[in-house]
């Protein structure tokens, strides 16, 4: 490895650590959130350095897009005086023992991890790839070898939407009334691009980095941008259609997982002839559903008819 490369890694990781500290402890809440968002951006670069483009894509789409939007929107919903409570001197002192404990833990952790041999399952995945039904190893692991994990994960996401909706319907934030003439134009340009790239990533997922999660995140980013620009959830879409779109991913997953039992009697065992098609169906359903679910998470409450389909 060339010194410039090592130096790049060192600086990247150092700034990540500094930003992480800022993101947690910055005196001003807004500063903390902005630092955390920057931390997310650099994390995506770190994934690229670790030769994990799949994760980098997901992190870029979620970190640069949705997590930031979610945090900023939350910050806007909190009352301003609660944003930046300054740390008292005593509170700062009481942090010290914890800090010492944390450093000791870090050292132990580091010593342990350096001694790990890290054998991994790479070879096994490679040897099973011909029967996987897709060309991309990560997609094969996600949607075939460990598909049960992914099903539960989609359940977690749907559960998060249900959980937020179950908290009541009273916190839909009002959009700022500042004039923003350029915004609709931007969204009109970006929205089709985002939808296009969603499908591009879904298509790519079969043989390269991409797949349902980054694609869903991009779709959600497009929808959220549209909402921010003042678009409204159409009233006829708010009730059952929206709920069905949210539930579609998990339902499709369950139906296919159980449905393939008709052929071989084994849960989630795609019959080899149909494996590519079934995986593609699961991926598309999951991707679109994830997009809608992420948008719902951003909305932070169930859009209701009584509020005129507010944003």
């Amino acid at each position, binding site marked *: 490895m060339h010194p410039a490369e090592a130096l790049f890694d060192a600086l990247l990781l150092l700034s990540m650590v500094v930003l992480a500290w800022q993101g947690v402890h910055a005196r001003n809440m807004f500063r903390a959130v902005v630092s955390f968002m920057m931390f997310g951006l650099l994390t995506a670069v770190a994934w690229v350095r670790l030769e994990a483009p799949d994760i980098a894509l997901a992190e870029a789409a979620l970190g640069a897009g949705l997590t930031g939007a979610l945090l900023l929107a939350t910050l806007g919903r909190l009352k301003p005086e609660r944003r930046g409570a300054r740390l008292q001197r005593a509170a700062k002192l009481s942090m010290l023992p914890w800090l010492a404990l944390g450093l000791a833990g870090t050292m132990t952790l580091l010593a342990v991890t350096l001694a790990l041999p890290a054998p991994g399952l790479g070879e096994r995945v490679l040897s099973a790839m011909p029967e996987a039904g897709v060309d991309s190893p990560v997609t094969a692991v996600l949607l075939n070898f460990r598909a049960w994990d992914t099903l539960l994960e989609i359940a977690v996401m749907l559960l998060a939407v249900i959980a937020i909706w179950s908290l009541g319907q009273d916190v839909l934030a009002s959009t*700022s009334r*500042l004039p*923003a003439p*350029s*915004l609709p*134009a*931007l969204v009109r*340009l970006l929205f089709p*691009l985002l939808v296009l790239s969603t499908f591009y990533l879904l298509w790519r997922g079969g043989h390269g980095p991409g797949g349902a999660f980054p694609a869903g995140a991009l779709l959600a980013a497009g929808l959220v941008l549209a909402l921010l620009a003042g678009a409204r959830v159409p009233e006829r879409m708010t009730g059952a259609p929206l709920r069905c779109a949210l539930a579609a991913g998990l339902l499709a997953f369950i139906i296919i997982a159980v449905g393939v039992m008709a052929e071989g009697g084994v849960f989630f065992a795609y019959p080899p002839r149909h494996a590519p098609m079934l995986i593609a169906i699961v991926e598309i359903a999951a991707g679109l559903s994830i997009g809608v679910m992420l948008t719902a998470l951003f909305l932070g409450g169930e859009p209701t008819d009584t509020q005129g389909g507010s944003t």
Partner: protein
Amino acid sequence: MSTIAGAILIVLGLLFFLSGTLGLLRFPDVFTRLHALSKADTLALGLVCAGLALHADDGTLQLKLLLIWLLVIVSGATCSSLIARAALAHGIRPWQR
């Protein structure tokens, strides 16, 4: 030939990034900083894209680079206008000597 030209473009781009940062740090208020940053950065990224496009020999790739640049131009312009309008609405007055 194109290798050297590309490298020169990239180096130029990096210098424009530096100038943008200098502006961000040294200029006195939001509006001037915005001014320095958005212009310098957009240009800088354009130069880097152009340099890389010279190095690449793949049409799709060059198209993607162009797309990246266009996207950054559009969003940079929109964001500058949004931030400036918001700052004005918040009663931040432009700096005067």
